């Protein structure tokens, strides 16, 4: 039992983990303190990038940050609550209908963000051939076609709708399994102790009994929110998005890194994003974690 071979067993994963997850984060932190244009070697400039980010990057402050906050506050908690409500609803049904509903609700998240943008671009097409335009025109609600994906007024809303639509991912499945695995006797005991209705049942029994799954679901929902952030560029077909309407932090990083080659600055934005994700996860841990 005391053989030291656990390192051998773990090494393939640890090496890959180090090379493709940990090291990029360390390098990002280092680069964020430099000026780096990919041609000359990085030059250390201290906190300059962060100061620029907070004080001089108008696009970041006026567009990217508000967009990101709005998008993540709706898609994150919204998708999360939707997952729980839908999981609870289908847990009330016998196996066959439950499986069918679970499959239907999960199927949008089987579609890759990138490929599905092909479809959404057709539905929201800007001319009268676009399905939404054709529908609204025939109902007389609009009198000329709307440029849904190119118009700064609509892009962010459409991004939120598409993201919510496909947000029933792994977290949803975990919550469903969590609800189904709660011991029935817990409910019976609670009703004897004076539980009155199904709402109380959810608050006092269901959620506390599946805290670990709720936390897992929350973490998955945070990840989903920030990985689905590329959808604005996919939908509008341009980076930056029209008048920065759908620009989120992830797009800002790509904009500076790969279009302007300001790698140092882009890395500072990356670090800011990682900190934001970390803060969100601490909040979920506080809410659902077990000490």
């Amino acid at each position, binding site marked *: 039992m005391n053989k030291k071979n656990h390192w051998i067993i*773990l090494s393939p994963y640890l090496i*890959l983990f180090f090379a493709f997850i940990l090291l990029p984060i360390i390098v*990002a932190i280092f680069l964020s303190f430099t000026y780096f244009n990919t041609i000359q070697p990085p030059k250390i400039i201290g906190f300059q990038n962060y100061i620029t980010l907070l004080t001089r990057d108008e696009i970041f402050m006026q567009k990217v940050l508000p967009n990101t906050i709005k998008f993540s506050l709706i898609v994150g908690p919204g998708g999360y609550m939707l997952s729980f409500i839908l999981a609870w609803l289908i847990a009330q049904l016998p196996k066959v209908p439950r499986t069918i509903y679970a499959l239907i609700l999960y199927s949008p998240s089987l579609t*890759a963000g990138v490929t599905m943008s092909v479809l959404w671009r057709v539905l929201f097409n800007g001319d009268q051939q676009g399905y939404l335009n054709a529908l609204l025109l025939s109902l007389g609600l609009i009198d000329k076609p709307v440029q849904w994906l190119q118009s700064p007024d609509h892009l962010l809303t459409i991004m939120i709708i598409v993201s919510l639509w496909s947000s029933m991912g792994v977290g949803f499945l975990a919550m469903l399994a969590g*609800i189904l695995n709660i011991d029935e006797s817990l*409910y019976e005991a609670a009703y004897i102790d004076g539980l009155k209705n199904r709402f109380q049942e959810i608050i006092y029994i269901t959620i506390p009994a599946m805290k670990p799954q709720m*936390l897992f679901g929350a973490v998955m929902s945070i990840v989903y929110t920030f990985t689905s952030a590329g959808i604005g560029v996919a939908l509008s077909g341009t980076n930056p998005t029209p008048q920065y309407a759908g620009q989120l932090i992830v797009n800002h*990083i790509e904009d500076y890194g790969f279009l302007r080659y300001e*790698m140092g600055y882009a890395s500072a934005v990356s670090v800011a994003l990682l900190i934001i*994700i970390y803060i969100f996860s601490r909040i979920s841990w506080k809410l659902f974690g077990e000490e």
Partner: protein
Amino acid sequence: MIKAKNNPQSFHKSQIKYHLILIPISFVMLLPIIFIFSQAFKPMDELYLYPPRFLVRRPTLDNFFELFRMTQGSSIPISRYLINSILTAIATVILTIIISVLAGYGLSKKKFKSKKLIFSLNNLALMFVPTAVIIPRYLIIQKLGLIDTFWINILSLLAMPIGVFLIKQFIDQIPDALIEAAYIDGASDLNIIFNIIIPLLRPAIATVGILAFQAAWNSAEASIYYINNENLKTFAFYVTNLTAVTGNTVAGQGIAAAASLIMFVPNLILFIFMQSKVMNTMAHSGLK
């Protein structure tokens, strides 16, 4: 006394209200997916129809033929992208499973000092968003000499924190006594993994396999950032570029829908066949 009705065995009148809520929601969730099937099989004149009709009336395979014909003139046929994607997906699934099972076993059943630290690092990495650190990742891959290699399609996907997490949680359910008994009988770790752990681990392996397949099949990241050689790029990348090439023309929409369908269907089929195993794994997915 009211009794809880989670997970009922059979139909009851009281369930009707849940169906009344769920049917419209399911319909909305399904609409885009029905649309993509319908659009992919529409003949040219139905694509041009005004006002547009949602469902296909006379289905044809024209869009699929057109999709394959499109690349005939160019030096790289579409089958090249497809083969790249299939090879990437197979290799990613197999290697991710092996790596995650080894790591999950180590973290669950081995006793050593830094175990807790590694597992909590892995839990933190569940939140890893690759696009956030795309630039340093690019630089590291460049330094490793992996730019423009086929391997980078696979390598950047193999470290899958959620895979290790799910497998470790699943192995935690396997009693230690079983493994200790095997040790006493003189079994090595590899013996234990292959003869005891893996047979019990099937649901978790299936789940991690599906997640790895989805990640690999849907990934255009490596093709966009790390590969310049068109011969090595994947089908997901090809689909991403398809709308840019065909523009927003109506004919292009049919082709794009056909391509999207090819992207979607393998994910769907795998999930349908494996869903009971996935649910079984998810039961142990709690984070504490």
